[in-house]
């Protein structure tokens, strides 16, 4: 079988079960592809020994007829997930040399399902960023390029390494995490599928925290079916995470009928942003038409507090981050600064954190500290929480009116050039999240689906937002959109 790395999870699953291919073969193919793709800088810690061991074990399981869907599937794991005995740094210098003694619940669920970990994937430091440029490992690179250009593009962020690796067929799928769009934006930038499930669907235990009330893990895959299969394996109720929902995980793949007749799709008028490229508007319009052609009813809706979402997000997320990241103090693990004669505990903190954290992380810690400080708490943090409640209510109202899913652009643009935003106002970078943060603030499931190419040949994605806990329904709508869009383009290999 040629081009094993190009297989989808579903394709590989069927081939494995039929005996057409072994997990060892699949894994070796991916390991070779990874070794040949250092230019993408997607895999930052390779784990070939673990991969080969697990592949062999998976083959034995498949032979024994005890093979869950993910059994034998080679995947990449975002560096934010703690993986036992394997470097887990959240792409930060402050966690240099940190080897967890434990495995995150989500990655353990994948291990239990027989998935094969190929290594750890690049990302923005502590998942803070939209271009992968805040990583201590240096940025991952998008395998896509503009037609006729060899300028390096961002794979998006924070799950940029995951997106790059999946788009470049280095692995069949990857885990991502999404706090404000960190799965969906990179998926849109790389022509892949990424779903952020309902808050509480995936356990956060063992995932390095950025903003606890917003963080959710999810899969990044080559198509919607794979997203359904992998999400299924990642979800569970976890007593170790108090915010994990005590709900049974439905069969997501079984929900993929492609039949969306009678479904109501809402188009929120507030997502028409000033200065949004015409191509994005056009894509959105095509998306509406495709869903309408598939039998869905399209209705205009209003989500009136949308414009306050980004500012509220950039208060709440840094506030939580400033507290979550306080534990990186050089006392127990990770980086510790060398101290000078006479230095005390304050110097240990200051030097360790100044050396260990990159500038974007430091910026967010300072913003978060500021918005929680006495005298500013009500004006910023409390107000942002109120906005959050209103945004949640906007969605509840829409769903109460019979809307089944909401269609929006995934990003305000296609992938941009690495380095393009380096000197820009940080807020320019934050605007990348404008369509995605509302979903995190409301705790809803959202999925990015590739729906076309821009005039420079770069992928563009659409976002669908679903009702809480109805990922199956959302995936089915995404499946119908994917089928109608017929997106099959792949990046030309240059690496």
């Amino acid at each position, binding site marked *: 079988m040629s081009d094993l790395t190009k297989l989808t999870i579903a394709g590989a699953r069927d081939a494995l079960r039929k005996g057409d291919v072994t997990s060892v073969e699949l894994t070796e193919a991916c390991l070779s592809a990874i070794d040949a793709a250092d230019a993408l800088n997607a895999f930052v810690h390779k784990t070939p020994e673990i991969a080969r061991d697990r592949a062999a074990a998976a083959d034995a399981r498949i032979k024994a007829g005890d093979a869950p869907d993910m059994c034998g599937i080679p995947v990449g794991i975002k560096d934010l*997930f*703690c993986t036992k005995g394997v470097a*887990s740094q*959240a792409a930060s210098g402050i*966690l240099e040399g*940190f080897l*967890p*003694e*434990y495995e*995150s619940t989500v990655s353990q669920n994948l291990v239990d399902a027989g998935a094969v970990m190929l290594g750890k994937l690049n990302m923005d430091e502590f998942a803070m960023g939209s271009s992968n440029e805040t990583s201590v490992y240096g940025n991952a690179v998008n395998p896509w390029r503009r037609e006729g250009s060899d300028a390096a593009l961002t794979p998006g962020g924070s799950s940029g390494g995951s997106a790059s690796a999946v788009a470049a067929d280095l692995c069949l799928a990857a885990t991502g995490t999404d706090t404000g769009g960190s799965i969906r934006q990179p998926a849109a930038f790389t022509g892949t599928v990424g779903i952020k499930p309902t808050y509480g669907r995936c356990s*956060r*235990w*063992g*995932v*390095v*925290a950025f*903003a*606890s*009330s917003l963080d959710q893990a999810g899969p990044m895959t080559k198509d919607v079916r794979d997203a359904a299969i992998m999400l299924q394996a990642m979800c569970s109720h976890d*007593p*170790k*995470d*108090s*915010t994990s929902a005590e709900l049974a995980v439905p069969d997501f793949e079984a929900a993929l009928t492609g039949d969306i007749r009678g479904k109501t799709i809402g188009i929120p008028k507030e997502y028409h942003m000033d200065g949004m490229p015409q191509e994005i508007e056009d894509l959105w319009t095509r998306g509406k038409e495709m869903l309408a052609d598939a039998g869905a009813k399209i209705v205009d809706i209003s989500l009136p507090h949308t414009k306050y979402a980004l500012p509220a997000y950039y208060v709440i997320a840094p*506030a*939580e981050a*400033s*507290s979550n*990241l*306080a*534990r990186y*103090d050089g*006392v*127990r*693990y990770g980086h510790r600064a060398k101290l000078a004669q006479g230095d005390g*505990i304050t110097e240990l*903190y200051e030097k360790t954190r100044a050396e260990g954290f990159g500038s974007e992380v430091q910026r967010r810690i300072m913003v978060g*500290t500021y918005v*929680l*400080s*006495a005298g500013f*708490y009500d004006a910023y*943090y409390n107000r942002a929480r109120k906005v959050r409640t209103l945004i949640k209510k906007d969605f509840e109202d829409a769903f109460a009116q019979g809307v089944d899913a909401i269609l929006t652009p995934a990003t305000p643009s296609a992938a941009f050039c690495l380095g393009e935003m380096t000197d820009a106002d940080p807020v320019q970078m934050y605007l990348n999240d404008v369509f995605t943060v509302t979903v995190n603030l409301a705790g809803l499931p959202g999925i990015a689906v590739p729906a076309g190419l821009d005039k420079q040949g770069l992928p563009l994605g659409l976002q669908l937002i679903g009702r809480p806990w109805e990922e199956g329904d959302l995936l089915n709508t995404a499946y119908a959109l994917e089928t109608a869009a017929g997106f099959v383009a792949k990046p030309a290999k240059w690496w």
Partner: protein
Amino acid sequence: MLDLTYETPKPKVIAGAKHDWELVIGMEIHAQVSSNAKLFSGASTAFGAEPNSNVSFVDAAMPGMLPVINEYCVEQAVRTGLGLKAQINLWSAFDRKNYFYPDSPQGYQISQLYHPIVGEGEVLVEMGEGVARLVRIERIHIEQDAGKSIHDMDPHMSFIDINRTGVPLMEIVSRPDIRGPEEAAAYVTKLRQILRYLGTCDGNMQNGNLRADVNVSVCRAGQYEKYQETQDFSHLGTRCEIKNMNSMRFIQAAIDVEARRQIAIIEAGGAVVQETRLYDPDKNETRSMRSKEEAQDYRYFPDPDLLPLEIEQAWVDDIAASLPELPDAKKSRFMGDMGLSDYDASVLTAETENANFFEEVVAACGDGKLAANWVINELFGRLKKDDAEISDSPISPARLGQIVALIKKGDISGKIAKDVFEIAYTQDRDPEEIVETEGMKQVTDTGAIEAAVDEVIAANPAQVEKAKQNPKLAGWFVGQVMKATGGKANPAAVNQLVTEKLGL
């Protein structure tokens, strides 16, 4: 049940150079919740373990670790609230108190600032017979304890022990209703007693399982009453908080010296600065720890790792139904049903172990007053001599009850009973068996006693004549008869016969 009424004690007055000053005191008690596991992790809370051995990944704040509330600790907090007649909040929430310190691995303490689990309650603090202060409780919240930094083991390094990190605490906050050092100590004693009755805190102050922060201010006479009417703190003086005291003696000394410090400042025309202070018992002074300006900004916010804590009224009711009889109720029952004195009832209810022991003695003998006498005077005295605790008592309550029953029955006299007690105590023997074997049974046979009385009268005609003049000398005859019978004659019978025979 006996309804006890109390008079309010007078506030402590300290005479300054110019005026008299009254004290106003509020306390925050940190009580370690009796629980085998920590508040948000499964690690052990055992005291005295090897440094850093009772530490889970959560306690060490490893990346990606999450807290999960220990339900038993919540139950203990609810039980405590019920024991203090407090409002139980069915909806409460956890907040993070952010600060950097090496013994706080998370960089924050999980506490309950905005929505504590327990609201307003009260503690009756007795200050002597018929005098008591009702101290209002403002709130109780649950929070994590911090670890320990050790600075004196190495000249260049500090050491950290995070065994204590994450150990469950209840912070019990009083209103400023305490009016003197003795009241403060009595308040802590009473609170400790209730917590020990409830089994929610062992009250071990030496191990730091019960610690007090004390807010002290002074005011002129009449100001406190204005505060009480209006609940407006501006009527009171500026307070200082003395942190982290774990001895009753230090609490009292610190309050006294702090009040005097404040009075001196005010009378010299200065103003007390609101600040946190530490008490130095060696120098008997308080020292500034940090001023209000230097006070840390803790940036409290709701902990996003934990859902709000929602509990059911039915669960609270179940806990309420399982509450033990508390000190106030027990004391009033001992006084009302058993006729004990205020003092005896207080002594016997100070600790549950004492009360339980006493009640078993009563069950075995059926006489509360006599039993109280024997437990307090004989048993406690004897235990004290051996420096022993009641839990180590070599004589069981059933056996002590037997002794009291033997006295009641008239089988032995009180004097003989003391000998029986000593034998039972030291030789682990059964009192009835002792009396039998040692032939200590009281002679109640009137014939035998009469013979002895006759003998003594016949042998002492001169004394008989004197006694007829002065009836008080009858006692001498009683003594002689007792002597003759080896102390076994029933003293009451002897008395009666002597009086009769002498014709008094």
